[in-house]
Structure formats: structure tokens, C-alpha cells
């Protein structure tokens, strides 16, 4: 039931879907082996994300040694500094599937053009260069536009989650 949480957390640090899923699978193998270590001191989710964090760190350390870092989003050095690998959840929500649902709603609220660029980049998996060529923009402009759209989506997700929490209260 925590597969989405784990996979999304891994994807925060590894850009490649296949690699991220490999690491996420390894997390569950580790969970399977170390399940006895869970004593209920924290929530199950926190414990699972802790194991995930360790697994990401191990993977990045190995990758760093192998100098194959193209699929790494955040540099291993930074992760080693313990500053960026926190399982900081900007939406303060404890269920990744709810975040995904909120994201779906927010995507539908986007205007046609920003939505197209998101679909091209994330769902059709086109490169920024390829999108830029079509739009007659520079790849840098496309990347910055994507960042602005992500920011907007993040705000929308927060608002959706707040609504959800208020409704529950």
C-alpha cells in the first residue's frame, strides 16, 4: 500500500523511471527483510520512508563511485550532507495517492498551453529541446516555463489538499 509513496520519493532523487523503480523495488526487498525492526515507535509510513531514504543514499553513493550520474536529480555530495534528503513533504500530506489525485485535478485546471507543455514533457516524454524546437523557443525557456508550471501545480495541490482536510474536519 505504500508503493506509491516510496516510488514518488525515489523519483524525487532519481530521474530515470526504470532506475527509480529498481531502487523502489529494492526498498521493498529491504523492508521485507527488516520488517522485524519496526517497533511502532513512529508511524509505519515514516519508518518505510526512512528505509527508502537509506536505500536512495546507498544507491547514489554507488552511482557516484561509478561516475554515472546522468539520472540523478540531486547530487550525491549534497545528499551526503543530509540537507536535501529529508523526506520533506511540501504538501504535508501522508498519502502520495491523494497527492496524485490532487495533481490530476490541478492538471485539468491548467490553461491549454501550459498543460500541453506538461503533457509533452512528462507524459509524452519529449525532451525540452524537442519541445523548444516546436515552439520556436530556447530549451532554457521551456525548462523555466516548466518550472513555473510546476510551481503553480504545487500551489494548486496544496489548496486541493487543504480543501480535502477542511471537508474532513
Amino acid at each position: 500500500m505504500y508503493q506509491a509513496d516510496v516510488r514518488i520519493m525515489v523519483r524525487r532523487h532519481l530521474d530515470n523511471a526504470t532506475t527509480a523503480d529498481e531502487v523502489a523495488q529494492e526498498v521493498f526487498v529491504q523492508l521485507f527483510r527488516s520488517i522485524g525492526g519496526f517497533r511502532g515507535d513512529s508511524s509505519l509510513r515514516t519508518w518505510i520512508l526512512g528505509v527508502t531514504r537509506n536505500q536512495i543514499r546507498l544507491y547514489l553513493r554507488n552511482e557516484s563511485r561509478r561516475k554515472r550520474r546522468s539520472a540523478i536529480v540531486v547530487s550525491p555530495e549534497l545528499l551526503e550532507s543530509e540537507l536535501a534528503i529529508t523526506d520533506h513533504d511540501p504538501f504535508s500530506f501522508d498519502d502520495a495517492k491523494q497527492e496524485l489525485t490532487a495533481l490530476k485535478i490541478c492538471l485539468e485546471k491548467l490553461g491549454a498551453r501550459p498543460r500541453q507543455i506538461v503533457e509533452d514533457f512528462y507524459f509524452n516524454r519529449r525532451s525540452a529541446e524537442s519541445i523548444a524546437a516546436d515552439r520556436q523557443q530556447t530549451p532554457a525557456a521551456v525548462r523555466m516555463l516548466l518550472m513555473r508550471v510546476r510551481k503553480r501545480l504545487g500551489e494548486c495541490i496544496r489548496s486541493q489538499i487543504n480543501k480535502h482536510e477542511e471537508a474532513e474536519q
Partner: protein
Amino acid sequence: MNDSRDKVRALWCRQLSGEQLNEQESQLLSHALRDDSQLRLELSDDATTHALLLSQQDVVQSENDFVQAVMQRVTTADGTTPAEGSELQSSSLPVLVSGQSGREQQNRNARRPQQWLAFLLTLVLFLSVGLIVWFQSPSQTEVAENNPPPAERGVEQTPKVLPQQDNPEPAPDENLAATDKPDPSDGKAPADPNESSPQLATNDNIPAPATPQNASANAELPNMVEETSPTVVAQQFATLTKLENPVWEREDTIGARLGDEVVRLFGGTMELTFDDGAVVTVEGPVEFQPRAVGLIDLRRGRLSATIPRPAIGFTVLTPTSEVVDLGTEFDVSVKDSGASDVVIRKGEVEVAPGGRDGRGIQKWKLVPGRLNHATFYARPDNGKPAPIVAKVQGARGQFHGIISMDGKTANFRSEDTFNNVHERVMTQLKTSQNDIQLQWQDFVDSMQENMRGTMNLNGRQIPFSNLDEVMRLHSQLGNQLNMKVGMPFNGSININGKVIQFKTLEEFESARRAAFGPAANFGAGDLLDMQRGPR
């Protein structure tokens, strides 16, 4: 401060989009993230939204595959299958990852339905007790650890959990509590991702990959098979058969199976063999997407295909063209702009404009020694009119070009005219888009007319016998006008037996328009303006 943050954001965006930063850039980003807490939070939020977007489709859609892969890893990593080894171990994992288990469990389960039902009742009971209470109670955990549930539980849970994949709310607590294994390999590095495929093959109890496995369970768990097998079957239809010095973001090695996924190879060479025998070789940098057996999207880069008889019909789609093999060897290359080239090496291939509005305009067969090279020009997708422009050429100078816009297609047998008109179209599109479509229609219509005659300009006789030569004539005139501002105009145009005299530039303009109609004006601008210079 803001400038430096923008610089870091730009680096961050490049890294997110899969680009590899150099050492200096990487350090700059790392330091900024370390030292600037506000920026760190901002980018952390961004990373999460990025991950959510990346996961939007695959986390949900490939949930079954993911669970299956975890199960395979667990069963093979320990050297035992759940049936041979600890059923308690295998019982804990499926629920954590939303519930799925191996074939042995399914088979056993089918043999013991009464235990299956017992498990359902147990599960409902545990759900009613509640997750939090169970987990937050150490005594509960200890009791469960000391009293592991009956071995049948691991067998029994599978059918209950499988149908619930859309509602992953089974009680993880009971399974977590039910298993108390020390952590013998804590800190172990993740397995080499390449292990996943061999693991499928090395599991003695699962002799074939997922499809046969699902098929074997079909009779017993039809619902599960209906949900899972189409995904698995559809996703893999090509095998990586050669790989040399790859620079890419993947971990695949020779023998890896590929499916409908985008592959980016930044450097090196790879060969992909589709299940129907079609062999595709690519050399980095290249971006492509195998879509199905017999179908591949080439987004940019170069691809060579060798197609055996059973794979005839193999199709390559590019942003600007469609290439359908008719039993052959051919090369396709796509530029970043989307422009594409097709060269036939052996056999026969059918090429046509592709992409937006491109289909159905024209098809050509490329054959070595005859028309053997096709070029499809880029079409910016910016919401503005964009012509479909393509040409095919042969080794002996054969040529056929088309320019098509708004359903009006002009055909060219002369490369010079084709280039001339293409240039005019593009110039016109840049300068004035308002009446381009109308002008184009008139122009194409005028091409149907017979244009034969002579222009006498300042004592020089210039014959023309078709539109091609008229276009060339205009091109020459344009060049002359640019070079010789103020040159005299005196002469006549004799076209199809009709003679029009002129003595001044104004009269020449008038005569030219009367003689050549839209062909005189399209894209060329006004000769009067050209002579007078820019306003």
C-alpha cells in the same frame, strides 16, 4: 542574489530535464542548495511536484508490474521461493506493496479455498481493529512476533489482496507484526538493476516470464490475469541485441526487453530486434520510442533498419514523415527541428509526409538507383500556417518536390524552382501572414497555366517556357534590382502570343503582373519597393 538564484534555478531545471551538469555546475548547484535554505525549500517543493508528474502515469499504471518485480526479487534474492522457504516472509511483502504474490502461492491457494476464505475473515477482523492501534502497541507486535500466524496465511492472502489493487487498504499491520526477521543485509547496496531480467529466468519455479505465469494461473484467477497480463504482454516486444559504449540514462544490457518507452541514447550504438525480426540500429545521440511490433517513433537522431520478409510493413514515424517498409534496408534521420531524411539502401520503401495535416498528400516509393532519397522539411508547430514541404531525389538527377498548404499542393520537377518557391513561401510567412493562404492558392492555380514566351528587357531577350523559368527570371530580376538601383526599364513581355510593352519601372511592374499573374508576385514582394529600398 536574485541573479545567482536564477542561475541556480536554470541549472536545477537542466538537471531535472535529464541533462548532465559539468563538475563546476554541479558544485555550484550543490553549494547553493546547501547554503540557501529558502532556495532549498523551493527546489525541494519543485522536486516533489516533478516526481509527482513523473509518477502520475507510471505509478498507477504499472503497479502490477512493480509488485510482480518485487516478488520476483524477493523469491530469487533469498535463494528460495515462498513455497520452499518461509511462507511467513512472503506473506508480509505483498500487502506492503498493495498485494500480489507468486504463482506457487496462487496454485496452493486454489487448492485450498477454505483457507482462502478463512483469511478473508481474518483480514476483515484486523481491519476492524484498526491500523494505528495495532501499530502503536508494542505488546501487540511482540505477541505477534512470538506467535507467527499459521503458515497458510501467506498462501491465503493472495486472492484476497489481488482483486483489491485499486483499493490498497489492506491491513499492513498484521503482516508486519507477523514477521520477525533480523536484518541480515541492512545497508546492502541495491541490486544491480540489470539483475531484474535474469531473475525472471533463473527462478526455477517460474520458468518463463510474466506472461506464461499469468496464463498458468488463468484458470484459477481469471480476474487477476485480465488485469495484469495485457500490461505485461504489451510492454515488451523488442530485445536489445547489441550495445556498444552506451552513454544513456538506462541500465539495460544485451538481452534486455524493451517496450513502449522513450529511449534516449546520448552516445554509442545499440541494436534493437523486434519480435517480428525487424532489426533497428541507432547511434547516439538519438531519441526514439518503440511503439509496438512493427512500429517505432524516431524523434531525433539516426536509425538504420533491416527488415526481413515477415516484418514487411515495419513503420518509422518521425515528426515530419512516415516510412513504411516494403522489404528492405533503409536509413532515417531526424534533426532537432523535426526535419527528416530517408535513404533507401536495398529493396523498397514507401515514404509520405507525416505529422500534423501531413497524411494523404503524397506518397513515394524509394528504390535504389531510382528515387532513393526523401527529405521532409521541418514544420514549426506554433499555431501559424506552415507548409508541408518535401522532396525526393534520385542518383541520376530525378526530382520531385511538393509544397502544400491549406490543401493546395504545388508539384515541382525542377529543384531550382522548388527551392525558389520554398524560399518565397518562407519569406512570405515571416513578413506577412495575413494573405499568405490566398496568395498561395492563386499561385498554385497559376502554375496550371501555360507560360511560354519571351521577355525583352533593355535589349536582352530572356525566353521562358514554364513557371520554373518564370520564377528563375524573377529571381534574376530581383538580384539585378538590388544591385543596380535606378537602372532603365525598356522592353516588352511576349507571353502566349500576347505582347505587353513597358518603358518605365512602373510600366514594367504592371506588365509583369498582367503577364504572370500570381506567379509574378507570390513571395517576391513588389519590385518597385525593392528598387526604392526599404521604407
